[in-house]
């Protein structure tokens, strides 16, 4: 037997299965937190910032300043922190389901733009965020929502900063390669529309004429590829649906392919006529194949099935898309 003094001395001095934490992973998570807060605070679609110091700046300018500050001030500073060579917490060869279950958190990347929007006073919200939280709840995990610009999703997924992403687009259109997709949780239609006074009544009627599409959207690729009919349209790219609508109104183009507008939105604009459109796009959650995501994706599929069968997915869709249920493909609705 030993005495207390010696015991206490040894308890204080001897190693007890300790190791230094990997600061790289903590850096990344704090940086992501700052990015998320910067994005959610300053990416309004219709609101504006109220800071006196920023009163003279437009929302977009303020957003750019915030992101630049986050990237140029905080990012480099974090990069100067001491690094410790130790095991990181990135998902690697281990089963992704096991990783997220151990963590108790599933990190889901969603885009800051459509189908999300900034609700004044409540921050960023939207259909993907609603579904992400529901999926987390059904899996018994906390969903950590990470706001990521669509064109950065591939890199952030590959870096292990998120477990899955909701690109709300076809993965290959965003450069998301070597990924595994869940079952679709909603189905998105784009529409080729013309002014109500136009003589065009079909897609073919716009052959050889200028048609607008949103830059970076799949509508551009559809038009460029001949609109599925071998047509040769002159593609005019604009940054948003509103900009395309303005181009149509000014006569600059004879038609446009919608990106974020729903059929409900178009119904509120009786001056427009739908003459066709690209095939329906099925939208899914996406994980990097290298993270061994099959088991997690199967669980997500089950969660989506459950959300669809109990009507939750329909309700969420109707709540966010002007009463439309986009949870099923058009042919089955």
């Amino acid at each position: 037997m030993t005495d207390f003094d010696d015991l206490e001395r040894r308890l204080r001095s001897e190693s007890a299965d300790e190791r230094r934490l990997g600061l790289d992973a903590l850096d990344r998570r704090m940086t992501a937190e700052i990015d998320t807060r910067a994005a959610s605070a300053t990416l309004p679609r219709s609101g504006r910032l109220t800071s006196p110091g920023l009163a003279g700046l437009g929302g977009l300018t303020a957003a750019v300043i915030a992101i630049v500050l986050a990237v140029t001030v905080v990012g480099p500073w974090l990069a100067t922190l001491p690094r410790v060579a130790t095991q990181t917490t990135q998902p690697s060869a281990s089963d992704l389901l096991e990783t997220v279950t151990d963590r108790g958190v599933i990190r889901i990347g969603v885009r800051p733009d459509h189908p999300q929007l900034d609700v004044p006073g409540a921050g960023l919200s939207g259909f993907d965020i609603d579904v992400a939280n529901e999926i987390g709840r059904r899996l018994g995990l906390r969903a950590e929502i990470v706001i990521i610009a669509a064109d950065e999703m591939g890199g952030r997924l590959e870096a292990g900063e998120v477990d899955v992403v909701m690109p709300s687009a076809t993965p290959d259109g965003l450069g998301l390669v070597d990924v595994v997709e869940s079952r679709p949780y909603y189905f998105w239609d784009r529409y080729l529309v013309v002014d109500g006074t136009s003589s065009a009544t079909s897609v073919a009627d716009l052959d050889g004429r200028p048609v607008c599409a949103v830059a970076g959207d799949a509508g551009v690729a559809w038009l460029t590829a001949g609109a599925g009919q071998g047509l040769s349209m002159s593609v005019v790219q604009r940054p948003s649906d509103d900009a395309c609508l303005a181009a149509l109104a000014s006569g600059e183009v004879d038609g446009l392919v919608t990106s974020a507008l729903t059929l409900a939105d178009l119904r509120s604009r009786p001056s427009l006529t739908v003459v066709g459109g690209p095939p329906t796009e099925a939208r899914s959650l996406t994980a990097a194949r290298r993270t061994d995501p099959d088991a997690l994706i199967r669980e997500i599929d089950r969660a989506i099935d459950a959300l669809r069968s109990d009507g939750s997915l329909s309700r969420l869709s109707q709540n966010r898309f002007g009463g439309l249920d986009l949870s099923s493909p058009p042919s089955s609705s």
Partner: protein
Amino acid sequence: VTDPRPIVIGSIASSSVEHAERVAALAEHHGPVLYGFARRLGLADEAAEDAAQEALLRLFRALLDGESIADERAWVFRTLYRLAIDQHRLRKRIAGLRDRLVGSPTAEAPADVDSRLSIWAYVDRLPERQRQTLYLRYRADLSFDTIATVMGISPGGARGLAAKGLERLRRQVPADEATR
């Protein structure tokens, strides 16, 4: 439409740097002990590191949210304690994924030569709360008042757990080990 939240972009960035610096300093100085405590809470390897990092990240979020935290180190230990409890509950719900709940960490992790010789190899065979209390007292160097806050017990209870743990150790540690 006006967003009623007062948003000052410059202050977001500058305060973020300040908070990140404090959290990074905590991770640097107390990370090994946070990891060690997570191990005494029954988490193994990567799960222990993840939990320690999550506790630190939650501190960062709390600071960004403007929470007033008097003792950040105690706050992180308390958060880590709760995270580990939550993880145990989650694992109980998901049968078959893991078979390591609240047992001795040394029983599930392969003990290397060093840990077999360490006094902590004996501590890790003590009842769960005794080993956690001893760890917080002697490795994390927390006061009994703080230990009580972390574990949700009274200071007297924390002292009692530590005393029982020491008493057991005194009986179990061989004399030749004690003199090395």
